[in-house]
């Protein structure tokens, strides 16, 4: 390696390293945190260090061993209120009644401050005799867990440790995945349905007309998503412009509900993502030699046949690229469904936001996030292989 190439490499490294380091710390480390937090949950292990060393002799079905009772008492005495509070909140979320049981028990222990006094847990509260209570604690003592990833699919481990379906009254997560996929597939389909003819039209005209058609696609892309969401809100109200037009033209007797419905969310998402379909397809279409379709016609193909056998196969790359882009983006949507949708239109992102901002259940939010990120990355890799335009916004 000559001194000159080495110098050039050093210069490259010096120029690249600030952004590489920045993204490493503030993009990859956060994503890594999500992965870790999805499978690593020390909340309960931290609160019960003594208990985790004394559960070995227990057969899971019978009453707790005296060792375990003493260990639990030692933990309740030794753990700080904050750490214990986190653990109790988590336990209470898994099986209700833990909060009252724990506060009753800690009160009883405070009444007997001398560690030498024996406290009988079963005398404090009979619920301590129930092996299921103990299982709830013992099963969560290991900080590494697949519980949250399983819960994302409404699965759990039963008392024998085998994977089983959650009871329907607690199974609430997987429905968000199916809904997200159904809505995203609908949006992708609509984008193809409108975007393909639109791109064909834009590719078939020249000059000012083409500029107008492309500008109509680009302007929305430049416009704030909140402005678009508010505008859709105005349009879709019961006394809004769409219903005004429908009633005014006699197409409908009464207002058609659009706001907070699936139709409204799909429509607004299609509007938002249509450019990502039109542009890749357009790019592919303008590269097709202009004499192919006339040639097909000259050889006797009717327009439909020529479209099906000549244009569509050539445009397929653009359509697949556009579809991947649209689908990949729409499964991560949060803002539009939050503003324009009802509870039945919230996608996986709002479930994640709910777990993290409202319920403060980070592991659950992380597990769902990890799965969403995994799906998106896979689609991105496929997209990169086919790749026409990597840029999403410009």
């Amino acid at each position, binding site marked *: 390696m000559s001194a000159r190439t080495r110098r050039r490499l050093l*210069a*490259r*490294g010096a*120029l*690249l390293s*600030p*952004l*590489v380091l920045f*993204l490493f710390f503030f*993009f990859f*480390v956060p*994503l890594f*945190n*999500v992965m870790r937090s999805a499978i690593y949950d020390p909340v309960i292990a931290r609160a019960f260090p003594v208990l985790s060393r004394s559960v070995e002799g227990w057969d899971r079905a019978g009453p707790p061993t005296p060792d375990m009772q003493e260990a639990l008492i030692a933990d309740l005495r030794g753990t700080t209120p904050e750490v214990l509070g986190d653990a109790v909140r988590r336990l209470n979320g898994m099986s209700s009644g833990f909060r009252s049981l724990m506060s009753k028990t800690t009160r009883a222990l405070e009444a007997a401050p001398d560690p030498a006094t024996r406290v009988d847990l079963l005398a404090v509260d009979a619920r301590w005799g129930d092996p299921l209570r103990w299982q709830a604690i013992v099963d969560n003592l290991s900080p590494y867990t697949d519980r949250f990833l399983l819960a994302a699919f409404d699965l759990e481990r039963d008392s024998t440790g085998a994977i089983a379906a959650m009871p329907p009254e607690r199974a609430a997560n997987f429905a968000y995945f199916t809904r997200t996929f159904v809505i995203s597939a609908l949006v992708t389909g609509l984008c193809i349905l*409108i975007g393909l*003819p*639109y791109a064909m*039209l834009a590719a*078939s005209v020249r000059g000012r007309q083409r500029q*107008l058609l492309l500008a109509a*696609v680009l302007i*929305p892309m*430049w*416009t*704030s*998503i*909140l*402005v678009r969401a*508010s*505008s859709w*809100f*105005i*349009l879709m109200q019961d006394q*809004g*412009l769409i219903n005004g037009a429908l009633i005014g033209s006699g197409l409908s007797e009464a207002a058609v509900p659009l706001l907070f419905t699936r139709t409204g969310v799909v429509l*607004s998402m299609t*509007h938002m993502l249509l450019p990502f379909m039109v542009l890749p397809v357009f790019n592919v279409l303008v590269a097709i030699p202009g004499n192919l379709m006339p040639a097909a016609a000259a050889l006797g193909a009717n327009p439909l046949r020529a479209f099906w056998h000549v244009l569509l196969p050539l445009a397929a790359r653009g359509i697949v690229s556009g579809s991947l882009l649209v689908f990949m983006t729409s*499964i*991560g949507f*949060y803002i539009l469904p*939050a*503003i324009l949708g009802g509870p039945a239109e919230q996608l996986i992102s709002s479930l*994640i*936001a709910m777990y*993290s*901002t409202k319920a403060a259940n*980070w592991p659950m*939010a*992380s597990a769902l*996030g*990890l799965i*969403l*990120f995994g799906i*998106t*990355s896979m689609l*991105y890799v496929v997209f990169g292989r086919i790749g026409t335009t990597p*840029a*999403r*916004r*410009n």
Partner: protein
Amino acid sequence: MLRLWKLAFGLLAVLFLLVPMFAILPLAFNDSSILTYPMTGVSMRWFSELVEENIWRRAILNSLIIGLSTAVFASVLGTLAALGLRGSTGRLARFGNLIFLMPMVAPIVVLGVGMQLMFTRLGLNNTYLGVIIAHTVISVPFVVISVSAALAGIDPALERASANLGASPRATFVHVTLPLARPGILAGAIFALATSLDEVVLTLFLGGAGQRTLAREMFAQLRENLTPVIAAVSFVFIVGTVCLGAVNVFLRNSRRFRAEGPAE
């Protein structure tokens, strides 16, 4: 017949694309306090509320602080990286594309969860710096793309000529390369500013009551109480977008002008 169908489809599609942009704008000047049509009279009261009401004033200020800092951070980091990637081929170029463009693809809510987990530990939650860092992460790809495109458009002969005329590499960079790349850098900074101004999710996750931006406030108002101030903000946003777009087109034209000489 086919022509007619084409015309009708084109018209409908353009309407579908454009009407939802502008449907809200007239309501900014409506004097009714309900955000809906028909308009009852013309008034500027929502604009004055936007600049006088404390929460909105605060939100505008926050948007500007966060947006402009993001634009500065992102354009510095992005420009350096684009210079480092310049002229690279093969593995390095692929690596750059993979790493630098990835923030555009990661689902924003997932990124929000990860940053929240990390920022809590670093004490960056509910701080300006935290929000600015988050916005920089998602807007830096636009700078890399736009500066890379500008650098790729520079004729290497110009830099060789500068070197032949005795300029040091440093002088060539400062007096030839940088001025030629400037429109791309500015365009990238504008993209970054626009991204930050429109960002809701990360602000929601990482910002506290003190960092409520205009976009964040608008999101909250849209979900809670629909005030016509939303229409006024939308109007400001659209006017801002048009201005930024115009600056961008102007920059692109001036670059062409400089590179090719005046058109006839």
